[in-house]
């Protein structure tokens, strides 16, 4: 087995809305923090992969230009909400292949305000017919699960309540406010059973990770964090979420199960070996589904996990100690690298008030439109 690639520096620009900042400034902040964290100079970076979905041409180049033109390869990567994992995977693959010693994985995003043009995601006829709303897909998914397994709206709300509560300790989250279960349940219905405080806000942000091979990783200030697995998969048939219109059932595993299986195999561990996780909570029900799909519990039992506090801070496997997407928001291209930032901070013991005790092995799960799914496992 080839040696793991290592993360030697991470950086982030807080997620939120920054109308006065150009996107390249968000990226600059994240890269600057990562370089400082790694004790590196820009000239030490030998290639850049930049994940972004809603920004224009050559974002990576336009961020890195602020630091000076070093002539290296800088490439933008798009894979919907999983763009960050593909970016990290390209970086670690290049490093493990020996092509480069140090590669920057950067994610930058500014989501359009208000409604984004749905034709970026859906065919025109889907938009014209009124079949292009993301929350409609999430709600139908949740509703069926409630029908099949008895999952309740209250359990879904408890996930949101946990994540909002966790965010109070995360200065990089857009919202850092506790919201009561009652207020979550009584917030405006988006698509039943999903209410306003159960969903994440599209917003802006940037995150970066510097990836090195094992040999040079030891030279840097912090103990390197190993990338034990970095998997990107696109859903087999059927895609059941955005932007599917035909989902005839099959025996194929879901893309989450597919990516998780490959990740656990690559890392040589099982879900029981995880100390904590950051998972996709575009809406709070997604997190319950992630518990099941990532193997934290059997299919249909996800609601029980939140009921019994298993995924709370101090529980057996704290999930979304960062506050999740519900609190951070989802700047799509930056989202997964934001999770990686959190995982690295936790594993190093630098997560402050939101520190998970004995955080040695963490998993980050990201999922989005068109069946993109990423699972990364980092370990100390």
């Amino acid at each position: 087995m080839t040696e793991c690639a290592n993360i030697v520096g991470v950086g982030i620009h807080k997620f939120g809305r920054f109308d006065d900042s150009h996107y390249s400034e968000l990226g600059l902040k994240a890269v600057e923090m990562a370089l400082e964290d790694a004790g590196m100079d820009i000239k030490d970076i030998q290639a850049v992969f930049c994940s972004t979905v809603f920004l224009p041409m050559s974002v990576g180049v336009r961020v890195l230009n602020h630091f000076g033109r070093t002539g290296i390869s800088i490439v933008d990567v798009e894979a919907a909400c999983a763009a960050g994992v593909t970016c990290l995977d390209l970086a670690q693959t290049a490093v493990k292949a020996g092509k480069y010693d140090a590669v920057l994985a950067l994610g930058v995003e500014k989501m359009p305000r208000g409604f984004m043009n749905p034709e970026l995601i859906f065919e025109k006829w889907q938009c014209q017919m009124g079949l292009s709303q993301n929350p409609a897909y999430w709600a139908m998914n949740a509703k069926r699960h409630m029908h099949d397994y008895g999952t309740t709206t209250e359990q879904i709300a408890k996930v949101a309540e946990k994540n909002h509560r966790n965010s109070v300790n995360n200065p990089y989250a857009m919202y850092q406010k506790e919201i009561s279960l009652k207020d979550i349940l009584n917030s405006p219905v988006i698509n039943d059973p999903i209410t306003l405080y159960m969903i994440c806000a599209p917003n802006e942000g940037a995150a970066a990770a510097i990836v090195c091979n094992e040999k040079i990783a030891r030279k840097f200030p912090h103990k390197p964090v190993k990338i034990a697995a970095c998997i990107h998969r696109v859903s087999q048939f059927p895609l059941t979420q955005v932007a599917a219109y035909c989902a005839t059932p099959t025996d194929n595993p879901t893309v989450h199960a597919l990516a998780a299986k490959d990740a656990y195999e690559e890392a040589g561990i099982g879900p029981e070996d995880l100390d904590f996780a950051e998972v996709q909570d575009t809406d709070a029900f997604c997190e319950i589904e992630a518990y099941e799909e990532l193997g934290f519990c059997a299919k249909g039992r996800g609601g029980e996990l939140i009921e019994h506090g298993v995924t709370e801070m101090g529980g057996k496997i704290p999930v979304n100690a960062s506050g999740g997407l519900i609190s951070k928001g989802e700047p799509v291209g930056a989202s997964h690298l934001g999770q990686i930032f959190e995982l690295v901070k936790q594993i190093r013991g630098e997560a402050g008030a939101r520190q998970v005790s004995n955080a040695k092995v963490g998993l980050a799960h990201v999922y989005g439109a068109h069946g993109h799914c990423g699972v990364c496992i980092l370990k100390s």
Partner: protein
Amino acid sequence: MRSATTGSPKIKEGSDGRQCVPFATGFLTEPLEPFNNVHLKGSTCLSCGITLFGTRYACENCCSKELKNVILSRDGKIYSYTIAHFPPPPPYAGPSDPFVPYAIAWVDLSEGVRVLSTLTDCKFEILKIGLDVELVIKKGWTDKNGNEVIIYSFKPI
């Protein structure tokens, strides 16, 4: 075999002088009138046996190019549903001034195909998983060339 989502619709002259076009190519049988003679088109894969909505270049499940064109059944059951309370942004072509809330459902047709659809003539109170529904073909909107765009929907039986 063209995939259902590409290509511009052919224009067929309606019997009373209207020009009818399908919402997209590859999903509806022609002629597009009378509406109760229009069916949903599907593809059955001769390799893995799955049936998909629309004409296809290859089987989305197993990649085989051995596909048979089929007509899908008109009857189905709701697998899951939701109600759109907020008007979608343009290019949504349904009523938007004022916006008329509508239901959306995953519908399981009797041969096992699951399709996403709006629901028509549907009182929201009766909506439930397992509700029987049937195909409706209707005019969706008028396009910028004055053609009537024909769409599918489902309604409770």
